[in-house]
């Protein structure tokens, strides 16, 4: 699973007008609300009701329960919570309780949150650097080949995240093909330890989320009017100047959308740090999972989840302020290009 709810939303409003009115009829210049009225055979809004009810029950309700749990006490035995209000789950983020009951400042979780941010940030930057060239290259291919190539970019997304992450265990381990190749050409004698390091985690994250960066940038680049580049060449600009001054500013909405689509899911990643980081590079999601697993501290896990959700929302809002049009590009480029 990936990211981008807002992207979906705005992509709808951007295109809904063409869906509800016939652009060919001159009279369709009558107001949109008039066209939205129910027309024969087009169904009705209540067709969507069962789906909405389902999503409320299985998406909104779980979030609400998480919020409630984050203010409850941990169960003494087994799973679940004790129905007693407390703020402990949130203070646990900063303080640890010693056996004697005293509290002391404990930066462990702050460190993990900072790590998560840091990994997500590196992942976003690396994805961006890789994605711009390939997105531009894709956008300049002949149309017939272009669709097939774009599809080729999306295929890995549709394969199992678990297997994709696992594949790097094979690649990065001490006997793996990379170490094998380096030894083979005599560059190293001892294998380089890559697996179970933060490096492996970031490589796994980049691998997982790269398509989410490529697709929105590609969608922007595809709409780029190359006559603008021609005009710039005509005025004496060289290739890199054209790229920097003319092309990149035009694909900015795609870049911003790509950053949202990569940064947010990367921040909440579970599998890459779990399988590739080897416990040395835990992220927020791993701590949450641990609370619902071995640690049996559901309220604390819930509080961390609330924190992750709030961060996600804040990041979304910040990006939305940075570029109002970004999410629209994400809608077209991200999900619509995937499908």
């Amino acid at each position, binding site marked *: 699973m990936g990211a981008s709810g807002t992207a979906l939303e705005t992509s709808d409003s951007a295109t809904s007008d063409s869906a509800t009115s016939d652009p*060919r*009829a*001159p*009279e369709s*210049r*009558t*107001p949109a609300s*008039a066209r939205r009225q129910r027309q*024969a055979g087009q169904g009705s809004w209540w067709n969507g009701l069962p789906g909405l009810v389902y999503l409320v029950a299985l998406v909104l309700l779980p979030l609400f329960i998480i919020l409630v749990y984050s203010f409850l006490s941990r169960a003494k035995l087994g799973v679940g919570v004790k129905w007693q209000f407390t703020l402990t789950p949130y203070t646990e983020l900063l303080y640890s309780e010693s056996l004697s009951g005293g509290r002391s400042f404990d930066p462990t979780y702050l460190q993990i949150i900072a790590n998560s941010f840091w990994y997500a940030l590196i992942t976003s930057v690396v994805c961006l650097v890789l994605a711009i060239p390939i997105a531009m290259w894709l956008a300049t291919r002949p149309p017939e080949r272009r669709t097939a190539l774009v599809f080729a970019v999306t295929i890995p997304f549709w394969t199992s995240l678990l297997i994709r992450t696992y594949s790097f265990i094979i690649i990065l381990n001490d006997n793996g093909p990379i170490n094998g190749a380096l030894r083979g050409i005599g560059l190293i004698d001892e294998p380089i330890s890559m697996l179970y390091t933060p490096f492996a985690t970031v490589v796994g994250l980049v691998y997982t989320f790269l398509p989410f960066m490529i697709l929105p940038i590609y969608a922007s680049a595809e709409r780029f009017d190359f006559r603008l580049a021609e005009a710039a060449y005509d005025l004496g600009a060289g290739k890199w100047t054209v790229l920097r001054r003319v092309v990149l500013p035009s694909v900015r909405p795609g870049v911003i959308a790509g950053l949202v689509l990569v940064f947010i899911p990367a921040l909440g990643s579970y599998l890459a740090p779990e399988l590739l980081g080897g416990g040395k590079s835990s992220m927020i999601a791993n701590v949450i999972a641990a609370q619902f697993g071995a640690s049996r501290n559901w309220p604390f896990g819930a509080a961390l989840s609330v924190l992750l959700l709030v961060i996600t929302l804040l990041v979304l809002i910040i990006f939305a302020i940075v570029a109002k049009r970004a999410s629209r590009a994400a809608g077209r480029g991200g999900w619509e290009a995937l499908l």
Partner: protein
Amino acid sequence: MDASAPALSVRDVTKTFQTPEGGQVHALDSVSLDIADGSFMVLLGPSGCGKTTLLRCIAGLEAPDSGQIDLRGQRIDDMPVWRRRVNTVFQSYALFPHMTVAQNIAFGLQMDKVPSAAIKRKVEASLEMVHLSGLGSRKPSQLSGGQQQRVALARALAKEPEVLLLDEPLSALDLKLRRGMQSELKRLQRETSITFVLVTHDQDEAMAMGDQVAVFNAGRIVQVGEPREVYLRPNSRFVADFIGEANVLTGRLDTYGLVIESLGLVPRDRLLDGTLLPAGPVHVAVRPENVTLDRDPVGTAKVTDVSYVGGDIRVEVQTASLTIVSRVPSQRVAPPSIGDRVSVSFAVESLCVVAD
């Protein structure tokens, strides 16, 4: 049934749309219209004038806010679309892309529970009528625009509706194809003697096809009549301007006649309905082909533009206060040059006093 009763009668139909800003648009403002049985009625007007809204109200695709629509004396405005004996040819053709041509045509007949043998016959006959025999097994996407248009026609006509509604059916075709389809439509209308109601914004098309033309402006019908009548005797400045080209001059009607500034006086008895009109300032429309220009070194007008339009020469002249357009067949006279001085005259019978 009374033979002279209209096939379709529209009474005081009003339709208002809400704008998203909370305003209102009167798409139809108390529109009334009678359409004679077996006639070809054209609803003509600029974009957004309400003509398509009226068509959709008749079809049942839009519900009027008030008013009444009768089909052969039976009230239909509260009847659902699928029960009305009225069919539509859509502007976008709206052929069902997942069905073959034959299935498209058969669809409406299946809805009427026509036996399948009869359907087969009717589909064949309909295809033949629009010269598409043998293309029944094609998908719409395999047809040209003109052929799709014919399928849309055949599909609607196969149901033998009381009235056939055509919503800008030719607007997507190129000029040459459109001319061909115009005569084709007229032929079909004559042969089937079904009442046709066609919407268009193209005045040439309206003139070429209609037995009757209803000119729309801003949600109202401003004039109904035969094409020739509407052309020669526009009843308003809007109609004069919208249909063909017209010189609209301001003048004054007094006891003796019509005075047009810088051009002269026309006695009242030579004007159409001249004796009935009240005195006061008026507008007078005159068609360019009724304006005569004569080379005259001391004429009051000066030629400012000369161009060829079709087989005619269109000449624009400037008098002290007016711009006047004249149009004459090009082979008749040697064209004047820009800067020539000319005198301007009208055939008095062609003057038409119009409302504002």
